[in-house]
């Protein structure tokens, strides 16, 4: 955030460097149930982001001292593949991924009926295979589909999207260059059924009015994401639902 760039990020017609309008999201594609070994899984492409999510559980907690007697814990592991970025990332967790994992686990915990599974863990693993800004939203969006695919009881899915500020204008779903040279980024996640915000971060500089506009934009986009999530689950399960009778 806040770097200097000679590139115009938004042109005089309001078109961004990847050809989108201010309030336009990158294309998102989700596939549910892509892995054999995991209890639930999803693959997601969001613009140039590619992520894969796997869910196990509820299952026994190791080490045991982490277990809670009256509910399941939700453990979320966000990781970036070494080849997901321009300069190879050293494998293993760092402070950034640990923080993203914590807030994403908390967002999912909001919708999962954890009290139905005392003394267990629900483990969510998301690996970013290719990164181009907005990976925490992409990861959480995929994770939420994978949790549903695992058959884990939940109030609703969680849908995520970011909005921010570039060249003094509020924009939706920042791409890598906008994230690097823009003025603000604000990822959020909501529970679509209630509209509650369950993940929110922001860095940069925005006025109160800009925050309002960015929130409206991001929340609206979350509802579009929600539809894509549901489509993905439908696509996997509809085959089971329907059958011609001769």
């Amino acid at each position, binding site marked *: 955030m806040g770097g200097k760039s000679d590139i115009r990020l938004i042109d005089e017609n309001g078109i961004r460097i990847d050809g989108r309008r201010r309030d336009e999201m990158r294309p998102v594609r989700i596939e549910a149930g892509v892995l054999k070994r995991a*209890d*639930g899984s999803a693959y997601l492409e969001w613009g140039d982001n590619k992520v894969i999510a796997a869910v196990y*559980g*509820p*299952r*026994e907690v190791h080490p045991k001292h982490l277990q809670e*007697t*009256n509910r399941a814990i939700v453990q979320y592991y966000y990781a970036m593949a070494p080849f997901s970025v321009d300069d190879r990332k050293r494998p293993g967790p760092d402070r950034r991924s640990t923080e993203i994992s914590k807030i994403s686990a908390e967002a999912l915990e909001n*919708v999962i*009926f954890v009290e139905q*599974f*005392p*003394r*267990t863990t629900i483990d969510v693993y998301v690996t970013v295979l290719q990164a181009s800004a907005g990976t925490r939203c992409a990861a959480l969006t995929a994770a939420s589909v994978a949790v*549903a*695919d*695992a*058959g*884990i*009881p*939940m*109030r*609703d*899915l969680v849908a995520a999207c970011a909005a921010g500020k570039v060249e003094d204008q509020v924009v939706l779903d920042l791409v890598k260059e906008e994230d690097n040279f823009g003025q603000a980024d604000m990822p959020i996640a909501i*529970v*679509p*059924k209630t509209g509650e915000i369950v993940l929110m971060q922001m860095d940069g500089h925005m006025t109160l009015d800009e925050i309002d506009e960015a929130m409206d934009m991001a929340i609206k986009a979350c509802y579009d994401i929600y539809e894509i999530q*549901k489509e993905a*689950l*439908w696509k996997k*399960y*509809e085959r*089971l*639902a*329907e*059958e*011609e*009778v001769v």
Partner: protein
Amino acid sequence: MAEEEAYVDKREESGGAEGSSSRIREIVLPGELVGEGLRAGMGTYREGSKVYASQVGIKSVRAGYVNVIPINGRYMPKVGDQVIGIITDVGPTYWMVDINSPYPAPLHVNEVPWKVEFGDTAKYLNIGDTVLVTVSNVDEVKHVQVSMLTQGQRRLNTGFLVEVTPSKVPRMIGKGGSMISMLKNLTHCRMFVGQNGRIWIDGEPDAMVVAAEAVGLIEREAHAFGLTERVKEFLESRMAELSSSAKESDGGEDGGR
């Protein structure tokens, strides 16, 4: 088991009128409104007068309840369930049994049909052994215990084990046990369906393969209409193939066995 059959009934009824050109079972997703003013059954939750789905599943309304029969998910043990377990650890007075649920279940030496001296546990059951057990206790924080004292419970020494999604178990059993009886009769295999999704098959090697294939077919098409008929056709044609190839090879071997 009676309870399991009940939801098979519900599904048949919620399927729509017989004779229409196509029928749809309603798949619902978590957070989806499934009923108003109805009672919240399995796979659902209530907010005010509204009932929502909590799992991906098939909606079914019956007797004032709206249920969502889950398509996926782990097995959650209930007292009285007969399950197939695998021994994962041996202690001086108990065995630890994996029952394909989030909760490992101890089997105490007092709960087996043998007189076991302290420290002699491994002589009776060892790691990797397959056992047929009953869930004898589940407390409020899901401590689970299993027992082998009910009649017919034993170590399974021969045969083969396959696993299906636990929510498909009612379909494996069928209405009043119709599906599993048909599998057993047509393949001449001994079979047992554990509530935890593990299925034991024992019989002639080729027939076991056919039975396992039929289990796979039921799992894939658990929610399709006309499943029983399709499984029957499958079994009859596969078993016919087996007996004709057996005859051929018998002839070739100058009288056979």
